[in-house]
């Protein structure tokens, strides 16, 4: 029986199994109340084993090794880059997201070539420094978090060692982002590696033709190594075995990303490789997968927009189907926006509830004249509104109505948000005792409930309350308040 076979899958691993190997002294050095509670958190991957100081002592050496083994992920975690500039890939525990949270979001790498100029010589020309800066400067604020891009892939299109070396040097000078060096000629690869000896780049790639030289380079420069075996899983697995035997332990697998008609093979290969590792206990395939949506750009006559579309499809599909790194070309905002958002979404904890607590929330320091707004308790709706209100600054009350975790539009259509339920939520919030005014701002998507809601408010004992229809999207709240707050009637009274 191999070690992998006896390793329990995440679901089967119980806190008791882990607890039995811990020191069981309940010393609290880890910050938990006792060893059992630490064990439970270990199983949930909420803490790391090294947070238990006693387990690192000599007398627990064997237990420590065993724990490392039973807690180690089926997909090896590989580090590209060094220290604070490193990116970790792989480390996956499961095949399906509903089994356990996916770890280490797919790293997004963008290419420059060694034949690109440093700066553009004519408008629209792609140049090394410009592209690197674009990658570094990309940011999108999504429900209060900054989404960013991760890496630079330097490709040798010249296939000339000196040219590649100089390009890699130039990239390294302008960015501290982790790097992927792409060249299939070992001499060219080595020239690049020499330029960034202290950066631990990912080598792309070992093939059936250059594998032994690439393996030597990976050992010599202590870098993770990609195995590229397009549409040949026998070769992929054989090369993996060969590399491990050779002493190269940090591997990344590329079964090939085929655009267009090859999509089905691409998806099936990625799926088969990951499934063999997760469900079949196949150690040789227990490594991160790299996808190359960038392949859509070569050998076709389509327009730039069309190719960027295709690249976005591939990136999204491979993000869902197990890629741990993606090499892409398009830096267009409209391509990277859905790519980075889906990356963020699919790596969230699936146990995180869809709904937030229905209650009265406050922003800033609201007083008796601050606006009162209402939204639903769907997590994404709430976080969107929350992030907008924080962005605007100012003082507000926000009543979060219980719609069983459904967004405004669907809740109105499906009667989860009705005049009755709004009135009920307003009453329950106790807002009437906190404000002098009697105005409720409801979402624009719930506009058609406004008349009825005023009647319902009256019937639950809140006479005189008026409804203001807000914007259809919470990004419009600032403008709405500028125009409508404080309400005119209030001033006239």
């Amino acid at each position, binding site marked *: 029986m191999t070690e992998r076979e006896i390793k329990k899958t995440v679901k089967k691993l119980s806190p008791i199994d882990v607890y039995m190997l811990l020191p069981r002294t309940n010393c609290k050095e880890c910050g938990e109340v006792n060893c059992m509670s630490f064990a439970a958190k270990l199983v949930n991957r909420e803490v790391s084993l090294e947070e238990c100081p006693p387990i690192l002592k000599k007398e627990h050496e064997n237990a420590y090794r065993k724990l490392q083994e039973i807690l180690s992920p089926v997909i090896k975690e590989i580090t590209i880059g060094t220290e604070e500039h490193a990116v970790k890939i792989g480390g996956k525990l499961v095949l*399906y*997201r*509903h089994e356990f949270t996916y770890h280490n979001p797919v790293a997004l790498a963008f290419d420059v070539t060694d034949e690109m100029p440093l700066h553009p010589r004519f408008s629209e020309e792609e140049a090394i420094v410009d592209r690197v800066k674009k990658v570094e400067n990309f940011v999108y604020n999504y429900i209060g978090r900054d989404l960013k891009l991760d890496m630079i892939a330097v490709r*040798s299109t010249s*296939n000339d060692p000196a040219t590649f070396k100089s390009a890699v040097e130039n990239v390294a000078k302008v960015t501290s982002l982790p790097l992927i060096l792409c060249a299939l000629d070992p001499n060219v690869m080595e020239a690049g590696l020499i330029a960034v000896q202290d950066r631990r780049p990912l080598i*792309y790639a070992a093939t059936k033709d250059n*594998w*032994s*030289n690439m*393996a*030597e380079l990976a*050992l010599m420069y202590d870098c993770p190594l990609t195995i590229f075996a*397009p*549409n040949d899983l*026998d070769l992929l*697995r054989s090369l*993996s*075995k*060969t590399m491990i*035997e*050779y*002493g190269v332990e940090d591997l990344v697998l590329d079964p*090939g990303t*085929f655009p*267009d*008609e090859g*999509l*089905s*093979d691409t998806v*099936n290969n990625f799926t088969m490789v990951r499934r063999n590792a997760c*469900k*079949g206990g196949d150690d040789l395939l227990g490594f991160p997968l790299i996808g190359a949506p960038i*392949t859509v*750009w070569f*050998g076709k006559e389509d327009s730039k*927009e069309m190719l960027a*579309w295709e690249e*976005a*499809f591939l990136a*999204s*599909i491979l993000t*869902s*189907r197990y890629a741990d790194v993606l090499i892409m*070309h398009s830096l267009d*905002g*409209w391509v990277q*926006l*859905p790519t980075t958002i*889906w990356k963020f979404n699919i790596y*969230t904890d699936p146990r995180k509830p869809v709904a937030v607590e229905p209650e009265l929330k406050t922003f800033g320091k609201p007083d008796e004249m601050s606006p009162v707004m209402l939204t639903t308790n769907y997590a*994404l709706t709430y976080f*969107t509104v929350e992030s907008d209100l924080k962005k605007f600054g100012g003082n507000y009350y926000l009543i979060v109505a219980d719609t*069983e975790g459904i*967004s405004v539009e*669907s809740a*109105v259509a*499906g009667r989860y948000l009705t005049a009755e339920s709004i009135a009920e939520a307003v009453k329950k919030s106790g807002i009437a005792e906190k404000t002098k005014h009697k105005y409720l701002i409801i979402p624009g998507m719930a506009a*058609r409930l406004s008349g*009825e809601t005023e009647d319902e408010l009256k019937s639950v004992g809140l006479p005189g309350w008026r409804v203001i229809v807000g914007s*259809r999207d919470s990004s419009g709240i600032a403008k709405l308040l500028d125009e409508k707050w404080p309400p005119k009637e209030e001033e006239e009274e």
Partner: protein
Amino acid sequence: MGEEEKEKKADTGLAGLLEVLGLDGEKEVELEDVELSANELILLPSFLASAALKTVAPPVPRAPPKVKPSTILEASFTPFLQEYPGQIREVKLGATKSEGGSRGKTITIGGATTPAFYLFENTPRHPPVIAVDTFDMKVPLPKAIRTQVEEVWEDTAAWAKMAVEKWEVDMLTVHLLSTDPLIEDKPPAEAAKTVEEVLQAVDVPLIIGGCGDPKKDAEVFTKVAEVAEGEKVLLSSLTLDMDEAGVLEGVAKAAGKHGQLVLGFTALDLNRAKELNRKLYEYVPEGNIIMDLTTAALGYGLEYSFTIHERARMSALMGDKELQHPVLAGTTNAWAAREAWMKLGPDWEPRSLRGPLWETLTALTLLLAGVDLFMMMHPDAIRNTKKTIHRLMTRGNAKPDKIANWVMQGYRRI
């Protein structure tokens, strides 16, 4: 290398010999001139190894020292295959003249025996299908869509005709939004008339959407079921709210009696989906039921939808009969995400691409999770999703030569 390991190594004759020669794995690399070809490098120690083994090596049951391979070590790949005791039911949408309806053709969905597009396990029975959304009144639509339908959006039949002919879709949804008591409150008879008009204008299978009010929808669907007798239209949707309002039995019975299909809608909750199906089984044949497990937009909860669909499909394949129904995704919901339509500044333009891409990616994600039937809106999103479905249906078209050297490919001046 730990102390213990070093000791082990010194024990074995071979390792000791190699160490003395400066040829153990790690040192060798530092010593050798990288100009040498790798084969020469590796042959040396492996030759020595075999010589050493013959003379000195005792048969110690310890891990052998690493000898660098000189050829690729064969390790063939066998896909891990799973047995799935369950299968998704097949559902036939629409009925031709000979089957008692008036559609030009019927469409069958479902029948899955593996997770979506696991072609290495089995070929999908039926490709997923797209139905285009139309409405029986002017509705607020994002600009990218509005410009496509403006000319026809006050005439439901004309809208339907344009969608089917111009966009080449396989199915059509008519949302009877005007029946909403809070909008126009159109009576069921009038809604049924709209359905009859559309049935005459186009010959594709239809989905009939309600307004969301459980009582009103039940009345409207009951009437539609009657006038569309035998057409096998899909009523979208029947809900547990209808049950709470006491109207589910009536509308489900009408659907069963007139041979219509029903869509059971629940909000991201498989237990409720099963509960609803159990109620529907009393009145509607099992092969006439499709599930809507809720579709959230990319950036607006798509991950919840993705995971609930993966879970549902896996449970169904593993034998949960109450989940063995094809699933529908209201992908037009993608436009609820502000990133699909909002002005975000010049860095994120053009919106004319961003919006349709948003809808497409929402569809593709759920496609991979097992969705059989999509409700969609933008013609570019429909076209691209269709193209992707087509590509995912057959294997063996990869051209390794084309990408073998992608690393060196330059860009065409565009």
